[in-house]
């Protein structure tokens, strides 16, 4: 069913190309970066971008190469966002599909719980969680996951409610299939596509959340590079060395744009009503 529909449009394809570009960069960064991203180099503080020195995006206030830090930070930022989205997505989806499938009291209480988590704006909730748990990389993952649990729960519950009365489900049940079997073999595959869209859009927001938290000094702690804390460090010097702020920011923008393009493109494919009717 989904296979036929998933003929990618231009927007989704552009998104995939951007994301693939970053993935290649991350893989390369595991083996090679132009300069050491953590070691300070006091002889080359705040040098402007130049091909001659090899610092193509300049150096920061500690003489570290901005490009190398962006490369090293890419895996940190992306891994945190992926892990947080995956954790929140899996927990939320499990809660949501069981709530939608079983109905009744379980459904009622799970959705009230989701309502309550929804009562906190996501940035506020993640800042609050970081304040409670303390500034640590792992805690950023937890904060992102908690923000996403109710979102995935709602979406997957809604999707299950739409299809659980369909004939193939009733057929499976009358054949004596267990709830477990029906849920994971029949229902889950049918809601995978809306979930993929949600994952893609969630990743884009997760990267922004991580960078906001690190910018505020609540996320990844220096000297480990993350795009957010690079921008945080750049605040003091950006008036004289704008490159310290411009390039890490662009790194965030394009990756987030990649996930947004992918999510938006996929949503178009899924929802034919939104195709341009002109």
């Amino acid at each position, binding site marked *: 069913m989904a296979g036929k529909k998933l003929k990618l449009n*231009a*927007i989704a394809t552009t998104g995939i190309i951007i994301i693939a570009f970053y993935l290649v960069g991350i893989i390369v960064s595991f083996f090679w970066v132009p300069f050491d991203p953590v070691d300070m180099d006091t002889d080359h503080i705040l040098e402007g971008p130049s091909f001659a020195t090899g610092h193509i995006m300049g150096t920061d206030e500690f003489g570290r190469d901005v490009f190398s830090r962006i490369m090293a930070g890419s895996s940190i930022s992306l891994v945190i966002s992926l892990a947080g989205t995956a954790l929140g997505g899996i927990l939320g989806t499990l809660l949501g599909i069981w709530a939608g499938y079983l109905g009744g009291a379980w459904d009622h209480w799970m959705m*009230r*719980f989701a*309502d*309550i*988590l929804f*009562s*906190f*704006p*996501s*940035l*506020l909730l993640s*800042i*609050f*969680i*970081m*304040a*409670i*748990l303390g500034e640590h990389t792992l805690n950023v993952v937890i904060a992102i996951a908690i923000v996403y649990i109710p979102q995935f729960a709602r979406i997957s519950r809604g999707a299950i409610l739409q299809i659980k009365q369909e004939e193939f489900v009733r057929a499976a049940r009358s054949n004596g299939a267990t709830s477990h079997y029906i849920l994971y073999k029949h229902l889950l595959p049918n809601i995978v596509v809306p979930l993929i869209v949600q994952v893609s859009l969630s990743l*884009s927001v997760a990267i*922004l959340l991580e*960078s*906001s938290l690190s*910018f*505020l*000094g*609540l996320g990844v702690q220096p000297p480990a590079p993350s795009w957010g804390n690079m*921008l945080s460090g*750049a*605040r003091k010097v*950006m*008036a004289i060395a*704008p490159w310290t*702020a*411009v390039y890490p*920011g662009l790194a*965030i*923008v*394009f990756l*987030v*744009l990649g996930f*947004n*393009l992918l999510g*938006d493109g996929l949503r178009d494919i899924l929802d034919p*009503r*939104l195709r*341009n*009717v*002109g």
Partner: protein
Amino acid sequence: MGRYIAKRLLSLIPVLFGVSLIVFFMVRLIPGSALEMYMGTQVEATPQQMLELKRIFGEDKPVPVLYVEWIGQILRGDFGFSLRTGRPVLPDIISRLPLSLELTVLSLLISLLIGLPQGIMSSLGKNPFLDLINRIIGLLGLSLPQFWLASLMVLAFSGFAGWIPMGNYIPFSENPLKNLQMLLLPATAIGIGFSAVIMRYTRNSMLEVLQMDYIRTAKAKGLKKNVVIWRHALKNAILPVITVVGFNAGGLLSGSIVIEEVFALPGMGRLALYAIYQRDYPLIQAIVLIIATIFVLVNLLTDIVYALVDPRIRLDEGGK
């Protein structure tokens, strides 16, 4: 309508109860008690003083009892006192709330000003290439970290002296013009991202409505294209946009936390950050509770506005 509002107001109680539970118990999760943290900043205390402090910090009773007492205090308007200044936290928060709210409203206005026309144009566009460009620009707006955009704006406009009045914040009541001038850039930094959301919803909603039978009828009747678009289509298409605006107002309010920091504006967001850096947990607790409550109330207000505009909702609810 009165019945609908009453019903919605009642449904607020369990949600706010849950919110207070989460805020209360999450703060209890912090390793080390508030008293220990307070003592960390103070000199030694005698055993009698310790006992008295324990009573003040409410560490002499079981947690459920403390929760009930805490709720009782909050309902009387007592949100506790700051660990750092020793002052009650509520007046401090209230004095900073207007700036954050003003910033939120301004950013909302800016995002509507950009997003609505862009969304309408995009939905009418016969030119698929222009439409694509429009959408990519929208998505780009959504991908900009607010604080980064804000920093770049400071960088770009700091050359134009007078454009960003630097120095002390001037409240609206003192000098409205200067105040708005100060808030224009921060509000734009918050608003640009959200304008992309508004654009997307306006576009999708318009596309959906434009396919409806009554639009075809209106066109077939020979009505002017502008009348069809503005009076028939937009009036219906605007409904989902209202909902999105309402549900995101709280997000805009918390977005101002970061932006206030960048522009050094003395709003509630900066107070929250200060509280977090200082580990001032009563202050954090109160701010989170207040923002979440505002968020829930705005959502409720959105539902009510929606029901006012669209009679189908309240009739449906009332029929049950």
